[in-house]
């Protein structure tokens, strides 16, 4: 894996909510790179800041610190109109909550083409309709559905409308926020296959946010594990599954649901206690590379232990 081109660089990202006097830090000092053409998985507990990171990348959430660089250009903070437009054109986000993210009063036709309208693209009406039909077919929906309203669809169908809506923009980079958790396994498989196919054909890059680790493992080249707004571990998927280091990662892996009733009943859950580290001021934890491409949030003592565990 030589010569990989960084498409997205997130450096020391910090996002806060609330007032200036009572800020709440949702994302703190998060750094990771995403290479062109890869799928980067982001997993972590509910409320850990995954969606917030995605929204900070597409400039919906303002950043309180750090930078986001896309294609070598800083896209966080104050940027020119041209850069803003570039972000809108090239980065699409598929949202988590299919119901809340679709305008209930608009027909599917409008919902799917909304991004085109927003960009004031110069498509003729028939070209636009053609694009809508193609996007709907691409996600396994009938083109006729264009004239229906979102509430007439099941949860899974609505999620596919959300995917069609981002595909129509021909993006380079897609942030997929729990794109398939509302889908049943069979359509989930279709959508995952579809995402892989689009990736191969169009060289797409994905930031894939999900809580279903079996899916993340299957689709991601690399995985970042986030806990309470901070990255805890980052590694190639198989490495992370084979040699998880951080106790939170281990807890996460131990909780993966298995399609096996007996196995489920015998399963031993590991629980992560953030107090277990016993960090001190003399040896504060830091983001360190334990082996090439494998990062972990740890103090020096833990790093030694982790390196030993990896047999180095």
């Amino acid at each position, binding site marked *: 894996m030589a010569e990989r081109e960084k498409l997205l660089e997130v450096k020391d990202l910090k996002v806060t909510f609330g007032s200036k006097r009572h800020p709440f830090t949702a994302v703190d000092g998060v750094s990771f790179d995403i290479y062109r053409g890869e799928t980067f998985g982001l997993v972590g*507990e509910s409320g850990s800041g995954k969606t917030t990171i995605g929204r900070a990348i597409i400039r919906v959430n303002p950043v309180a610190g750090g930078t986001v660089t896309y294609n070598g250009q800083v896209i966080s903070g104050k940027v020119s109109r041209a850069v803003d437009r570039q972000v809108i054109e090239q980065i699409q986000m598929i949202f988590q*909550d299919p119901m809340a993210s679709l305008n209930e009063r608009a027909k599917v036709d409008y919902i799917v083409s909304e991004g085109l309208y927003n960009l004031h693209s110069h498509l003729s009406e028939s070209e636009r309709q053609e694009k809508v039909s193609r996007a709907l077919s691409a996600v396994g929906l009938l083109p006729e559905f264009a004239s229906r309203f979102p509430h007439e669809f099941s949860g899974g169908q609505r999620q596919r409308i959300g995917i069609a809506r981002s595909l129509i923009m021909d993006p380079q980079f897609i942030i997929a926020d729990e794109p398939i958790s509302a889908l049943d396994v069979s*359509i989930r*498989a279709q959508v995952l296959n579809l995402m892989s196919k689009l990736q191969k054909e169009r060289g797409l890059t994905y930031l894939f946010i999900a809580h279903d680790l079996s*899916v993340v493992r299957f689709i991601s080249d690399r995985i970042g594990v986030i806990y309470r707004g901070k990255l805890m571990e980052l590694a190639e998927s198989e490495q992370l599954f084979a040699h998880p280091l951080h106790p939170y990662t281990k807890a996460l892996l131990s909780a993966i649901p298995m399609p096996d009733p007996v196995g489920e009943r015998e399963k031993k859950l590991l629980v992560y206690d953030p107090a277990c580290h016993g960090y001190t001021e003399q040896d504060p934890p830091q983001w360190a590379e334990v082996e090439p491409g494998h990062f972990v949030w740890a103090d020096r003592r833990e790093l030694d232990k982790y390196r030993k565990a990896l047999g180095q």
Partner: protein
Amino acid sequence: MTNDNIILSFQDLDIRFTLRGQVLNAIRSVSLDVYRGESLAIVGESGSGKSVFTKSAMGLLDANGVIAGGHIWYGGRDLTTFTREKEWLTIRGKEIAMVMQDPMTSLNPLKTVGDQILEAVLLHQDLRGEAAKKAAVQALAAVGIDDPERRYKQYPHEFSGGMRQRVVIAAAVACRPKILICDEPTTALDVTIQAQILDLIKALQKKLDLTTIYITHDLGVVANVADRIAVMYAGDIVEVGRCEEVFYDPKHPYTWALLSSLPQLGVKGQDLYSIQGTPPNLFHEVLGDAFAPRNPQALNIDFVERPPFFEVSPTHKARTWLLDPRAPKVEPPEHIRHLRQKGGYPHG
């Protein structure tokens, strides 16, 4: 109902939606008994009717939907005869509560999270004033929300997706229902919280003598929580059995396809198994076995006549002609025959 063990019984239920003059048969003559205290999982393709089916027991069908036939028995009453909202209010929330698929739609964005839970507590538990408020705060803590006192005063948009889902569960359970229907209760949750929520629901189930119905796509969740599984396809239940029976000895080709699509069985870099074709258009009448057009091994009769339920064991039955003694022997796909070994990951 005479059978004491049955708490809720659907009989030959038909549900139709009218959409711009066209009729959609969302539920096609479905019967299902739900046993007192059990945990039943309903699984099936998106759009197969899982939500509609269960919503019908709460009078929550959309305005363009009707129960066109059949009965829903609960507590000696046929819920399908209800005509007024007032009648439904004796059931909804109180007897049967539902955690909806979309947490945002069941929370009021203009009210604080605490007030919404408090409402349920005041309405359904014998508590007033400070005691009620305390119970509401505890309900938040019980679903694993940190700093519940502060969170109590916040609005839904200040919560993450998974936290909102937990709030909805807290509110539903605060109503102290007999039956708790959880429609995709944990899709928005990460696995650790998911495991905790499932444990929580299971504990509540024991403590409060709840009957639970889970609707979920996640077969891992199903394996964890279900005593029994009902598999739905195109508005019909095609297989029902005890959890082990359905996982280790599935009979309906749709159940085979469902299990085959699991990402756990996928090989990186290769396509996952996915079911060819699309589900039938429910605006048209469905002939025979609804899954036949997508089943490469379908028999001729599958296209003509709806299969009856064939009994596999006293607790396991499936609607497939493959179980007819005259049918050719068709084995389930090789890779799902060993779920017992394949399901798990080596931990750590």
